[in-house]
Every structure is written in structure tokens, then in C-alpha cells.
């Protein structure tokens, strides 16, 4: 792209118009870029993404052109979710990838190691920090490669019908696990043998690693050692957390049964479970697949003195190809910065069951009207992000509840020991470590400990 040597009358008018639009956008730290030569950004996004359904991508691209820079053109291309995560890295590594692409933090380690993603310029990171939450946990060796537009943590969902049939009201919402289990006991329907035929509480044990992680954080223990080379799974807190799950399922008075329904998100709307441990996306799933299901949500209960409540996840923004031209990179950062700080675009995160990271939306009445987002907001500052671990680390975590509840072949100790062994192998094998320190950026981190492993 050649440098422009003079400013024409038309260019001057474009600049002035752009400046007026920029000034009218409150809280937007993005300065209008120079209206230089035209730039065409090739943009890839999975076409089954929730964003495609709720926010029309071509529509916001046109808004960007009108409000920020009319010289940026877009070439949009999509692929189904599964194909996308195979095609994208191959194309990026092969030099045929897009300038700008939809990104997910699960792939952060590989993308950073492979040189596929461009780091944000420091001055832009400072601008983002002014208006967004959750920037620091996303930093890797002092660099930001992508940030979260929405934050996600766990909540408890309940079916309003089951709740009302039992004569329960909002005053009965539990704040501790003991209270929740007592409530679940009342909501559980049992057969003549005492086995639940409707679970009072479905702890999501088919993918129960996240329930276990939430409880473990409540015990005040980090999941990974500070140097990132060892997992803290088979620990005292880990045992207590797993034992709680065990008691709910196999104790004297079980309130759940993993065999009742395959998935919690289906068990709740089909009234096989009265309450369930869930994620923000459940709300979106029910809106499309079970529109008649009337549900409520409340914040995750906690054990006494818990320094943290649960794991933090996020909906990552787009990212920039490290091999794109300088002009394309600059324009792509403009697009992401505008997108991630636009109140209208970010408001839709609540529809997807996520807390927007845009600070100005925390008090937004529309956001607070969502029961799932307001429940998340109650705990969001006490959540922990355990970092950009290798993808198979999460598979090792899955062993805990897989062995205890799906296979039903292991005791608490055996399941934790196996998961510990697998996780340690994975963390030890990694070339570069991008985790461990990230847990220590959590709000309650100073009250948490690096526990002893039970040998």
C-alpha cells in the first residue's frame, strides 16, 4: 500500500465526517484511522456461530464502514464449526489464511506457539483496559493476543413448574451447598426402591469436571502449580470436592442419578431434573430448542469462607493474522476494538447468557433483566481463569467424573490419582507454559493456596 501524499477535498470531508461519528460514540476509545487507501480484509467466521444468528455480520461490517472507516472492505467467508477449526489453522500456517478471523481461547496456546496470531500494540491494550474488564488474565508474557467480549461462569438453573409445585419462592434460593442439597432432597421424586426418578439436583456429572473445578476453587486451592508444570488434582480440597459430588449421587439420600437423562440441558426442560448445574449457553439453547420451558437461575452456592466461587470462561473476540500486511493488521485491530467496545453489539452477549466485559454495561437494565446474567454477575468477580492450557489437559480433568460416575469403576481417590497422573504428563510435555500464573491473577488469589498432592 503506497503512502498518500496529499489530502483531497473529498478525503478531508471523509475525515471530518468520521471524526464527528467517532466523537458521538460515548466511551469508545478508538480514534478514527486515517482514511488512506482502501483495505480489503478477508474475514472468516464459523457460520453456525450464535453471532451469525443474532447479529448479522454483514450488517455490523457496514456499520463499521459508515461509522469508523469507509475505506475498509470485507470479504466474509464461513465454514461449519467443526471444519472451521481444522481449516483455519492450516490456512493461517500455509499463508493463505484470512486477515481477521473469529477466534476461541481454547486454541490460544497453539496459535501463539505457531505464530498464527498477532499481538495487540501496547497503546491499544491501554485503551482497552480503560473500558473493559478481564484483560489481565488474557495476557501472555506481557502481550495480549485476544480478549473476551463476554464472561461466563456457572449458575444453578431450576424449572419454575417444579419449584412452584413444591411451594417454593425466591426466598428459598439457597446460598450454601447444604441448603441446596436440602432443597434438592425435597424436589427429588423416588421410586419404591428409593432411587431417584426425578433428580432434585442434576450436578451435570456427564461432564462433571467443571462442577468439580468449581467446588475445588471454593476449597481455596489452585488447580495448577505456579510454574505450570504440575496439576493440583489429587489434593485434600480435590478429595473434598469429589466427595461432595459422590454423596449427591451415591450417598444415603441421593438427589441425582446420572442415568436418568444424558444431558443436564435436556434433563431440566424435560422435567427429569428440577435443578441443575449449568452454563450461560443453556439459556440460549432453551430459547431455540425448548421455547416453552420456564426456568429461573440463581448464583452458585458456596462453602463457608470460599475465596473463589467457580471457573471463569469467556467468549473471545476476533484475532488478527500475524502474516497479514501492516495495513490489514491496523484495520483489523480497528475492527476488533470497535466491535468489542460497541455497547449495542455487546448488549447481545446477555442474550447468549454471558456477562459483557464492557464495564459500562454492568449496570445496564437490559443486562440485569436476564436472570442468568444477573446470577453470574453476583459471582463474576470471584471466578478464576485457569489459563491457556493444552487442550488435552481438560480431557485429563474429565477422567475424574468419567471414572467415578460414567464408568462407576473408581473410588474418589482412584479417580483423582488417575486424573493427576494424566494431567501431569500433559503439563510436563508442553514446550511453552502459558498457564499457572493466570490463576494467580484472580481477585481472591491471595487467599488461595498451592496444595500438597496426596501421594
Amino acid at each position: 500500500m503506497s503512502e498518500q501524499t496529499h489530502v483531497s477535498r473529498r478525503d478531508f470531508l471523509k475525515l471530518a465526517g468520521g471524526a464527528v461519528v467517532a466523537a458521538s460514540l460515548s466511551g469508545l476509545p478508538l480514534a478514527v484511522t486515517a482514511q488512506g487507501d482502501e483495505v480489503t480484509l478477508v474475514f472468516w467466521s464459523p457460520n453456525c456461530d450464535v453471532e451469525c444468528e443474532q447479529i448479522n455480520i454483514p450488517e455490523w461490517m457496514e456499520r463499521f464502514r459508515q461509522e469508523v472507516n469507509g475505506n475498509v472492505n470485507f470479504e466474509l467467508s464461513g465454514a461449519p464449526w467443526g471444519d472451521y477449526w481444522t481449516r483455519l489453522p492450516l490456512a493461517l500456517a500455509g499463508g493463505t489464511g484470512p486477515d481477521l478471523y473469529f477466534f476461541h481461547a481454547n486454541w490460544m496456546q497453539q496459535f501463539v506457539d505457531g505464530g498464527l496470531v498477532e499481538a495487540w500494540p501496547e497503546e491499544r491494550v491501554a485503551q482497552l483496559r480503560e473500558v473493559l474488564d478481564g484483560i489481565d488474565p488474557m495476557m501472555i508474557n506481557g502481550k495480549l493476543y485476544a480478549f473476551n467480549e463476554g464472561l461466563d461462569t456457572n449458575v444453578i438453573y431450576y424449572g419454575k413448574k417444579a419449584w412452584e409445585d413444591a411451594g417454593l419462592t425466591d426466598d428459598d434460593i439457597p446460598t450454601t451447598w447444604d441448603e441446596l442439597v436440602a432443597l434438592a432432597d425435597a424436589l427429588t421424586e423416588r421410586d419404591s426402591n428409593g432411587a431417584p426418578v426425578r433428580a432434585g439436583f442434576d450436578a451435570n456429572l456427564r461432564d462433571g469436571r467443571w462442577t468439580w473445578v468449581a467446588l475445588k476453587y471454593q476449597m481455596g486451592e489452585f488447580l495448577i502449580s505456579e510454574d505450570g508444570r504440575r496439576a493440583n488434582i489429587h489434593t485434600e480440597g480435590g478429595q473434598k470436592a469429589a466427595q461432595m459430588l459422590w454423596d449427591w449421587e451415591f450417598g444415603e439420600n441421593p438427589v441425582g442419578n446420572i442415568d436418568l437423562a444424558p444431558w443436564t440441558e435436556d434433563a431440566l426442560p424435560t422435567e427429569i431434573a428440577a435443578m441443575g448445574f449449568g452454563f450461560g449457553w443453556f439459556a440460549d439453547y432453551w430459547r431455540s430448542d425448548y421455547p416453552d420451558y420456564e426456568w429461573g437461575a440463581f448464583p452458585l452456592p458456596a462453602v463457608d469462607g470460599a475465596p473463589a466461587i467457580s471457573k471463569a470462561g469467556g467468549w473471545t473476540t476476533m484475532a488478527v493474522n500475524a502474516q497479514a500486511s501492516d495495513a490489514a493488521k491496523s484495520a483489523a485491530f480497528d475492527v476488533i476494538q470497535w466491535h468489542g467496545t460497541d455497547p449495542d453489539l455487546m448488549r447481545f452477549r446477555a442474550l447468549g447468557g454471558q456477562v459483557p466485559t464492557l464495564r459500562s454495561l454492568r449496570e445496564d437494565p437490559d443486562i440485569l433483566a436476564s436472570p442468568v446474567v444477573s446470577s453470574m454477575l453476583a459471582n463474576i468477580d470471584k471466578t478464576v481463569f485457569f489459563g491457556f492450557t493444552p487442550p488435552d489437559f481438560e480431557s485429563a480433568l474429565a477422567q475424574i467424573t468419567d471414572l467415578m460416575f460414567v464408568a462407576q469403576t473408581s473410588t474418589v481417590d482412584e479417580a483423582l490419582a488417575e486424573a493427576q497422573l494424566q494431567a501431569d504428563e500433559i503439563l510436563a510435555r508442553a514446550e511453552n507454559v502459558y498457564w499457572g500464573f493466570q490463576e494467580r491473577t484472580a481477585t481472591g488469589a491471595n487467599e488461595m493456596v498451592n496444595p500438597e498432592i496426596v501421594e
Partner: protein
Amino acid sequence: MTNSIQADVSPPLPQVQESLWFKIFGGKKALLIYALAPTIIFFTIFWIYPLGVGFLRSFTNWSPMSIHAPEYVGFANYERAFSDRMVGTAIVNSLRFAVTTVGLRLAIALPFAIMLNNLRRGRGCFRLIYFLPVVTSVIAAGVVWRFLYLPRNGILNTVLAGIRDLFGMNFDLPRYLQDPNLALLSVSVMSVWRWLGFAIVILMAGLSSIPTTFYEAARIDGANRFQVFRHITLPLLRPTLIFLLVTEVASEIQVFTEVFVMISRGSGGSIGGPANSTLTIVGLFYQTAFKNFEFGYASALALIIFVIISAFSLFQLWLGRRNWDY
């Protein structure tokens, strides 16, 4: 008799050799090269070249998610594979699956094929019915079987529970896809059902090629049905059985889709649950290549799979060529 048949069906080669085009294109040897060329080119591009590249890359830390060139790592990927207990588990599971599935399928297909072969009417209709699962989408079939196997509310256990209550029996209902002792067998049953029709059709073709005169002679000699089966059907069906064994064992060792559809989500999204009882070697390869993007290590695993399948196929072919006394 054999010689006379060959003489009868021999192609009119002398006429071809005399033709002008035959001479222009270089004669008999050249014709052989032209005939084989498409196959040789196809195999070189789509089989030998990828195999060679895979072999070389198995000695590198190749990752497709990197702009950096792969680095030579010697035998590190093979050392990792031979010390990784998951690889051992996956190989054992794959072999168990192949032996169980192929064994069950042939044991069921053979009597069915014999019965169908003896039918005077409706043979085609039954053959079609048995063949239908072969042309059914494995994804759709897998999802249906997953629902059949649900521990509560699944059709199989609903029927079992009904029988249990009716006869006042007392036993726990099976957890087909959740119990590590049953999960692989449950997938195996689905695979037996799906490809049963294919085995029946091939065996029927083999049975129809056995001359009826042998059966007539055996009956005259007073042989009973079992003796006919043992001394005529089975020996003369041996090439067909060997063909099915080689192709089906090679195919079933590479099982992936059935397990992926029926099991994978049930263990927290990871492949191989419950308790790694359904972790197959191709499943491990998929996870390594397309979830972890460790193509160098995945190439080493692919080479190991290749060696295992080749060994099995060679052993089975050796069995087929051995002289057997009946």
C-alpha cells in the same frame, strides 16, 4: 476341464497384435504399461507419496498450526508412542473390537447366507432387507443405537425391565455405553448389525459358486448336513471367508466413526470413555492430529497402525494359502 475352459475363453490376442494401432503404440509390453499406468499414477500420488511423507514427518515435531518449519526429532515420537500407556490401551481395544466384531458377524452371517441360499422364493427380498443397514448413514444409525442403549428409558432396558418385573426377577439393568465392560461390545453389536448384510451377500456369492455336483455326490454317499457343511461348504468357501476376514479385520481395526458417534460426548467430550474402554488407535490418532494438532506424533501413530494392519493381513493371507486337509 480347466484347460479347455481357458482355451474357450482366451481373448483373440493374435488379431489385436496384428492391428495397426497395436503396432503404433509399441506392442504388447507398451500396452501393459498403458493399462497399468492409471493405477500406478493413482497409487503413487494418493498412497505411496503420502505414506512416504508421513514416514519422514514421523521423525519431526511437525505441527500444521505453525509457520515454523518442522524440526527433526529422531525417534522421539516413536519412543513416546511406545512409552504412552494410552497407545497400548488403544491397540488392545482396537484388536478386541476387530476380533469380536468380525467373529460375531461371520458367525451370524454364515448360517443366514446358507439359509438364504437354499430359499427358492424371496431370496432377493431378504438380501435387500439385510443389506439396508449397509447403506444407512453411520451417524443416523449411531444416534438411534445410542437411544436404544439409554440406561433409563432406552428401548432395550424398557423391554428388559418389563421382562424382569413380569417374571419377578431381580437383576440390575445393563448400562450399555457407560459400563467399561460393556461399552466396546455394545458398539461392536451395532457394527455387526450394520455390516451383516455385506457379509451375507459376499458369502452367498461364494456359496453359489460351489458346484451342486459335490452336494449331490455327498448325498449319494450318505453324508448328513453337518458333514456336508464340514467337508464341502466350509473348504470351498475358504477363499471367500479369507477375503472377508482380511477386509473386515483391516476395516474394523480402524474403527472410529461408530465409537465417536455413540460414545465421545458421553465422556465429557473426550474420546475413548468410559475409563478409556473405547479408546481405539484411530480415535487416539484423531485426537492427536486434529485436536492437539501434533502431526509429527500422529504420523508415528499412523505408521504403527499401518504395521499392525499389514501384519494381520499378511497372516490372514498366509492362512488362506496354506494347504488344509479336510
